[in-house]
């Protein structure tokens, strides 16, 4: 059996209905477990104090903000090349999740920055890149919403996702270039993995797994909704024609 079998909406609905409870359960366990471990049972960092606890949400959400876009890019490519509807709808379903993750990364970054940098917002290259990524999500979602015909919307958003990916990478590079002088020192950054001791690292890994599973759960739920919505539209159109 080929993997493309799952691109058939019916097959996808069957498989995802079976998988959804398992993925949901795992996501809840990993997320709740990881966050409780991180929040209650880890020591404070000698430099950052208790703010180090923010990494358990900031780092996974930042990773998922980028991973969600990558997943959308892959799904868009599959739609463009193989024209599987489920793929296009999965990309559509993932966008608001990615956007929320970007927002979480931005908020937690800003909240963490307040005591560290003395200001809510610094044009730190990382934060700035996420702000730009947020704008890309906004445009992508707005384009989906603006187009009535679902296949046209899928085509155009896929093209936007492709072009947007290139420009998002360019922006990342440009922002680094633009803000060389103000770059935060690694010791005061939350994202420097080499600074994360084991005692922080293990709960962080669990949290990352939790966010990944949460993403998968939500993508499955939302893709199922999109498929049902498409089917509803198709049935309504058929009723009108008959």
């Amino acid at each position, binding site marked *: 059996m080929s993997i493309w079998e799952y691109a058939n909406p019916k097959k996808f609905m069957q498989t995802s209905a079976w998988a959804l409870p398992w993925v949901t359960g795992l996501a809840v366990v990993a997320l709740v477990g990881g966050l409780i471990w991180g929040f209650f049972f880890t020591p404070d960092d000698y430099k950052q104090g208790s703010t180090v606890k923010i990494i358990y949400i900031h780092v996974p959400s930042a990773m998922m903000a980028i991973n969600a876009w990558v997943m959308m890019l892959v799904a868009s490519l599959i739609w463009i090349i193989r024209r599987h509807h489920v793929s296009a709808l999965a990309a559509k379903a993932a966008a608001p999740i990615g956007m929320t993750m970007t927002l979480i990364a931005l908020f937690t970054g800003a909240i963490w920055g307040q005591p560290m940098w003395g200001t809510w917002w610094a044009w730190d290259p990382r934060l700035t890149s996420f702000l730009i990524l947020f704008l890309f999500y906004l445009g992508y979602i707005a*384009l989906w919403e603006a187009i009535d015909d679902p296949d046209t919307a899928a085509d155009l958003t896929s093209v936007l996702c492709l*072009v947007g990916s290139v420009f998002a990478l360019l922006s990342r590079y440009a922002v680094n270039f633009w803000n060389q002088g103000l770059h935060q020192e690694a010791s005061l950054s939350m994202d420097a993995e080499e600074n994360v001791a084991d005692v922080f690292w293990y709960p962080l890994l669990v949290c990352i797994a939790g966010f990944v599973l949460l993403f998968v759960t939500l993508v499955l739920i939302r893709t199922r909704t999109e498929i049902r919505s498409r089917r509803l539209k198709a049935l309504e159109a058929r009723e009108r024609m008959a």
Partner: protein
Amino acid sequence: MIALLLRDLRLAIRAGGGFGLGLAFFLIVTVLVPFGVGPEGGTLAKIAPGILWVGALLACLLSLDRIFALDFEDGSLDLLATAPIPLEAVVTMKAAAHWLTTGLPLVVAAPVFGVLLNLQGEGFFWLTVSLALGTPALSVIGTFGAALTVGLKRGGLLLSLLVLPLYVPTLIFGAETVRRGTEGMETGAPLMLLAGITAASVALLPFASAAAIRVNLR
């Protein structure tokens, strides 16, 4: 292909406002900024490169929705899509026409507006060079946005939302070139990157734009 460019230029001239509107907008932005930040020359000189680049970028944005809208409404776009020239060439010529009617006037006028903002020393030279290198990218990227939104009724606002994030790298490298030039620093790196973005956009984006037009005409 040249015929298409000439036709678009002629249409822009006949319609009036083609050249003027973006330029007037640019002027107004330049005039409004001192009212907002105060007349102090040192402050203005410091922010002039950024303001001039942002102003030029917004002026460019203003006329983007007209690139395909008129041709879409009167059926010309259908006819062009069935004509023997490739759609990629059509969108390239459309972008070229947009640059000639919007980008080029901005390049020419920017140094004059720089005087209003107390732009210093070599800034005038680098402003002109960076705009000359960067505005073609703005037109080509904008054409891509216009191609995505061509069939939509309320595409104008969406167009801005789609295009502005794509403008970020161009803006950063463009304004950085002028800033460094004004301060007498090395401008080679940002200028090369700006030229790179323009070259890559001109070479690759027409394929995406043409694909978007094809989808929209379906």
